[in-house]
């Protein structure tokens, strides 16, 4: 009632700073329900303060608790939003199903909106001078060499290279590829750099 539940929620997400947990729909619902209970109690007591003046302080205490709950819920959500943003940079605009499952529907909506805004921005970069955009999710590391040797970790299928060559990415096959064309696959864990 006084913010204990919501703290459990936050401690949970503080423990797993590096990953995203399943959205805790049930707990959020309970916390919001408790806020409504507190609010109703306050409405009743606020109306009764004319008879019992000291109820006024009780109303103030509950109000602080309501504010606190609100702050905690927003912090929980905002923290997840920041993690979901990272998903866009690391997985791209299409999330693997097991990651998608961790998001609530509203969060998936946030992901899509974030993704669209980012895509619009990147597509417009350099448009004045005849570019059709720059993908900022590439070139994440200082370049060291133009080509690298990679090991394929999964059966991925065909990959068409810029020069028109098509190669087959099969599990455990190794390839010598242009760095610029395989960095996204490496980030997604499909290829691994060996050298």
């Amino acid at each position, binding site marked *: 009632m006084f913010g204990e539940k919501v703290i459990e929620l936050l401690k949970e997400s503080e423990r797993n700073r590096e990953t995203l947990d399943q959205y805790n729909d049930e707990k*959020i619902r309970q916390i*919001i329900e408790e*806020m*409504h209970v*507190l*609010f109703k109690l306050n409405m009743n007591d606020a109306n009764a303060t004319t008879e019992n003046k000291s109820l006024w302080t009780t109303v103030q205490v509950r109000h602080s608790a*309501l*504010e606190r*709950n*609100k*702050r905690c*819920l*927003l912090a929980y*959500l*905002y923290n997840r*939003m920041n993690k979901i*943003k990272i998903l866009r940079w690391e997985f791209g605009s299409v999330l693997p199903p097991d990651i998608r499952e961790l998001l*609530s529907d*509203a*969060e998936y*909506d*946030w992901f899509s*909106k*974030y993704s669209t*805004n*980012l895509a*619009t*921005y990147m597509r*417009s*970069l*350099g448009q*004045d*001078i*005849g*570019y059709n955009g*720059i993908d*900022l999710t*590439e*070139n*994440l*590391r*200082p*370049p060291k*060499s*133009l080509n690298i040797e990679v090991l394929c970790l999964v059966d991925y299928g065909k990959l068409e290279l810029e020069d028109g060559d098509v190669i087959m990415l099969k599990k455990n096959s190794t390839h010598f590829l242009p*760095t*610029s064309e395989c960095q996204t696959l490496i980030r997604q864990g499909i290829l691994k750099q060996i050298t």
Partner: protein
Amino acid sequence: MDEEQLDLSGEEEEITADVVLKTIQTSWQNERLSPEILPHRNDMVECMLGQIQHMERNINKLPKTDLRTSIHKMELSRIKYIICNYLKTRLEKIEQNCIIIINDEKQRIESGTNYLTPLEYRYAQEHLLNIEHHLKQTILNQVPGNMQVFEINKMSTVPNLQSHVFLKANETVHGIVLEDHFGDQDEEIDLEEGSQHILQYKFIADLVKNGKVQLI
């Protein structure tokens, strides 16, 4: 391929490609190391993008196995890294502090001293709308009546201008005042050309913007 003389947005002053590159490099380094977003250098970025495009066209004319092809490609990938990282760093700051950045930017636009590019500004506004929409949808519209307000002042995070940064003086600057918050005694120091220091960003924020110091 001839050395390019680049003409910047029709101004009289001509500027060579290597100077543009150095400027971008410096802006990138400062942007990475400063707590606040710095005035954009879109002129330089666009100029360099044009240069890259021009160079890529020329590379395509060279035989694939030509040694020069790989040298040029390597240089281009180095420059692309800087540009991408520079723009990405700015986006991160914009997202992080979008409320305060939008507020400050509104005033700066009026006085014609904007820090963001029009694209960045649009991105920031859209980002804030998205945040507000999601928080309302999930929490604020569900909580009891007087708790529903999106309190923009509370939500706003500000860059910590008091954070400590490392710098190198590009030229001598006298009389930097290290203000003392506790009423004891302000201290005054000189930054001699080439000297290096660690101090609060806010004391030298202007010097970063006018190029008298470089963050390291």
